[in-house]
Each structure stands twice: as structure tokens, then as C-alpha cells.
């Protein structure tokens, strides 16, 4: 079943169960809100980009990944609000009247306990619950490993390289998507050709180190960092060695799903010792990927 993606102005009213949220990461808490809803209503870009850019965090996923993860939950339609200064000025009452009721025809609305909406964030779940036009379901925060799941917590786990922790909260591995660009061919010379992605500055990436991952489903060893053995003059790079694959990936969009951190970033005295370590990293990645079961 494919999910339809609609921009709010093009949406048609029909009886809907609408889950509302920014849903960065589509983590287990978000999934509990979305559960059973046939429509997800979200904002693009992230409202903080308009409301308070200084507080905008590095996002867990770009819209393309968010869309696909939401589609994977069995949602029929994703309605996207083009969030701009004008929309930000609309009051909470206006949002309920004109977006939820008039434009979408909502009969049931699901939100998280800490959802706020409307100008100056004046709208809250209680305001939705007071409406007779639709039924409101308020989902409590979800706890994992003794702490509430939040996008903020996941960003911290990802930055710390704790991919298991991030996966427990997300319900799926943390993923980076990007176009494969030409590197400086160093990996090829070392016997480990890599598909290189320049990370998007606005998105979260794992803290520097070497990781076991799946790249488009293929087990891989991934280096995130500035490559301390060589002075390359490039910024942060995500270098993915797809194990037992040798095809040209330049220009392709690659999705790297991080499973576990294998080691920290390290400078080696010479290329030989680096190559030895890379063989160990690949062996570790093979082992980790083989024992990985999707949660």
C-alpha cells in the first residue's frame, strides 16, 4: 500500500483519524501517537526554523526519510503543512477550526502529551480535548531503558555514538541518507574502496568513529570523521565500505543504517597499520551485522 503525500492547501476533507506532530525521528513515542491513524499531519520545515532558528537542533532525519518511515507504519496519507511565518501567526483556535475541522474533516485526533500548537504555542492537548467535533486521544510519553523517549534524547545518543541506545528509542537503526560523491580515492589504494557521503550540516550524524552498518541493506564498515591518518583538507565525511560488493555508486543516493560503534577515531603511524586495523574493523562489522535482528 502506498502512502499519499499531500500539501495542506491541496487536502480534501473526509472523515479522518489525524495524528499531529513534527515527528523528527519517528521514534517509539511518535509511533504510539501515529498508531491507528490513517492520516499524519506534519510540518515542513521544522517549526523552530521559522520560530526560533537559534534553537533549531540538528534533525534526526530529512523529510524524505521521515516520509518513508511514516509510510512503513501503514498510514494512508501524509499531509504536510508548509510552515512559514504566516502559518506561525495563526492562533491555536484557528488551527483547530480551519485546518483540523474544515480542511481535513478530522473525526479523531491523536497527539503526544507534550504537543503544543498555534501562535505562541498556546494550544495544548486539553484545548483539543474540549472540542466536540472530534474525539481526542492524548498519548503519554513512552519510556525506554528507564527514561522518556524524546528527539532530544536520541540526538544526544547519536552524537555520543551510542547506536544501540538510539535504536532502542527509534525502534529502528539511526540512518543517514546522502548522495555518493567522489572521494580522493585513498580507500581504493588501501584496498577498501568506499562510498562517500558529505553529511548535511542541518542533520545529526554519529560522533566520530568506526561503525558496523547496513548500506542499502548490505553489511558495511563505516568511518565517520575527518580521517586523522591523512591530511585531506576535507571536512567531515561518512565513508562506507560495502562488504563483498564492488560496484560504482557515484551519484547514487545511499542510505546507511548504523548498527553499532566498533571503535573511536584514531591516527595510525603508517598506512600498513591502518590497513591491518581496517581488516579487523571489517571482520567486526561482518560479525555484528550477522547477529543483528531487526527490532
Amino acid at each position, binding site marked *: 500500500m502506498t502512502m499519499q503525500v499531500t500539501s495542506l492547501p491541496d487536502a480534501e476533507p473526509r472523515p479522518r483519524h489525524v495524528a499531529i506532530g*513534527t515527528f*523528527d525521528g519517528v521514534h517509539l513515542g511518535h509511533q504510539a501517537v501515529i498508531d491507528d491513524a490513517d492520516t499524519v499531519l506534519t510540518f515542513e520545515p*521544522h*517549526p*523552530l526554523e521559522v*520560530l*526560533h532558528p*537559534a*534553537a533549531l*537542533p540538528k534533525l534526526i532525519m530529512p523529510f524524505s526519510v521521515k516520509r518513508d518511515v511514516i509510510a512503513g507504519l501503514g498510514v494512508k496519507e501524509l499531509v504536510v503543512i508548509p510552515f512559514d511565518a504566516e502559518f506561525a501567526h495563526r492562533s491555536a483556535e484557528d488551527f483547530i477550526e480551519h485546518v483540523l475541522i474544515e480542511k481535513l474533516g478530522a473525526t479523531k485526533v491523536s497527539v503526544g*502529551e*507534550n504537543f*503544543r500548537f498555534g501562535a*505562541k*504555542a*498556546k494550544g*495544548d492537548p*486539553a484545548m483539543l480535548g474540549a472540542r466536540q467535533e472530534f474525539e481526542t486521544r492524548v498519548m503519554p*510519553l513512552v*519510556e525506554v531503558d528507564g*527514561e*522518556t523517549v*524524546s*528527539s*532530544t534524547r536520541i540526538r544526544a545518543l547519536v552524537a555520543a555514538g551510542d547506536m544501540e541506545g538510539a535504536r532502542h528509542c527509534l525502534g529502528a537503526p539511526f540512518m543517514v541518507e546522502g548522495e555518493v560523491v567522489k572521494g580522493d580515492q585513498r580507500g581504493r589504494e588501501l584496498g577498501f574502496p568506499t562510498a562517500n557521503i558529505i553529511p548535511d550540516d542541518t542533520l545529526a550524524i554519529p560522533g566520530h568513529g568506526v561503525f558496523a552498518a547496513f548500506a542499502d541493506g548490505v553489511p558495511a564498515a563505516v568511518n565517520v570523521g575527518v580521517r586523522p591518518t591523512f591530511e585531506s583538507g576535507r571536512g567531515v565525511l561518512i565513508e562506507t565500505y560495502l562488504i563483498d560488493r564492488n560496484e560504482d555508486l557515484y551519484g547514487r543516493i545511499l542510505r546507511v543504517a548504523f548498527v553499532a560503534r566498533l571503535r573511536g577515531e584514531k591516527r595510525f603511524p603508517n598506512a600498513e597499520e591502518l590497513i591491518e586495523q581496517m581488516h579487523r574493523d571489517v571482520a567486526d562489522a561482518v560479525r555484528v551485522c550477522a547477529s543483528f535482528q531487526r527490532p
Partner: protein
Amino acid sequence: MLLYDKPAGVTSHDIVAKVRRERSCKAGHAGTLDPFATGLLLILLGKATKLQRFLVGLPKTYLATARLGWRSSTGDPDGELTETGTVPGSLELPTGTVRQQVPMTSAVRVGGERLYKKAHRGETVATPVRDVEVYRAELLASSDGLAHYEIECAAGTYVRTLIETLDDAYCAELRRTAVGPFQVEDAGEEIAAARVAELVPAVGVALR
């Protein structure tokens, strides 16, 4: 007077000591920022240190981020953090004249000693209560269990104490964007005493 953008993790005094060393002249600041906070510090150099008492009373503007569903023993991220899981029902902060109890971890002196020194030894004493003015406390946005505010208040207001009025919240981030007419965007600039006197009437009167 030097406009300085303080990073998180250092004390205001650290910054003053650094400037004093670098310039080998007298230096002082006109209003402490907590170690976890960032933003505008007014650093007075040389003879301008004498203007301190005319500048400490200037109103302040802050951007503050409250983490919801958590509490901190000190009201800031440097304290002991506990998750309560309860999201505050209202995110409105009090404005107007607000009665605040000075936090135990503050530079206010009680019995001739700074409170944070007592707190450091594990002592707790009755801290002073005072009335402060909060001119504006606007909720800019709230998502991901965080609430972002812009707050304008009189000198002496504790923003972390203001945020604690939400109950299940603490001040996770604090940035001072303005002190009176001075803006953090202009950090790095040096302002001559004569110009300070133009911008701050009290200084103008003092220099006459």
C-alpha cells in the same frame, strides 16, 4: 567597555581574568552570567571599572530553553537531574512583579559569604526573598519536550527560578542577548566611555 559573548562552561570571573591577563589592565564585569549560560557580558576595562555600579542595574533580555518533565536540584543543567515524566499543564511564566527566593547556588552574599560557597560545603541557609520585575516572558515555541522563551526582566532576576515556577521543568539553556542598549550581536566591539555615557543616562550623569 568590551562586549563579550561568554561561552558555556566557564564562569564570568574566568572571562574577566582572561581579559585582565591579555590586556594587563584592570577589568571587571557588570553582571554575572551563570557558568552554564552564554551570551553578553559587559566587561569594563581600566578606569571604566568605576562605572560598574551604574551598569549593573540595566535590564536584561534572555533566550531560555526549559526542559519539561524534569527537575534540577539547582534549576540548571549543572544540578542533579531527575525525570518526573510530568509535563507542565501551563507553559506560561509569571510577569510583572514576581517574588523570588534567591537560589542557594547564586553569587548573592549572606552573612558576608557567597551562597554558592555555602552550597558547595553542603550547607543550606534561608536565602533572601526579593521582588523582581519581569517585563515580558514570551513562549516562542515548544516541541520535543522543550519550551523556548524570550524574557525581558530587571537586573537581579533569576531566570532559572522563573522557569522553576512551571514545577516540572528546569532551565536547560540560557543565553543573554541584551543588557540595556547593548546587544550580543555586537560582541567583540569596544565602546568608549563617552559613548556608554550617551547610551546609559546614569553613566552620563556620573561622568559629568
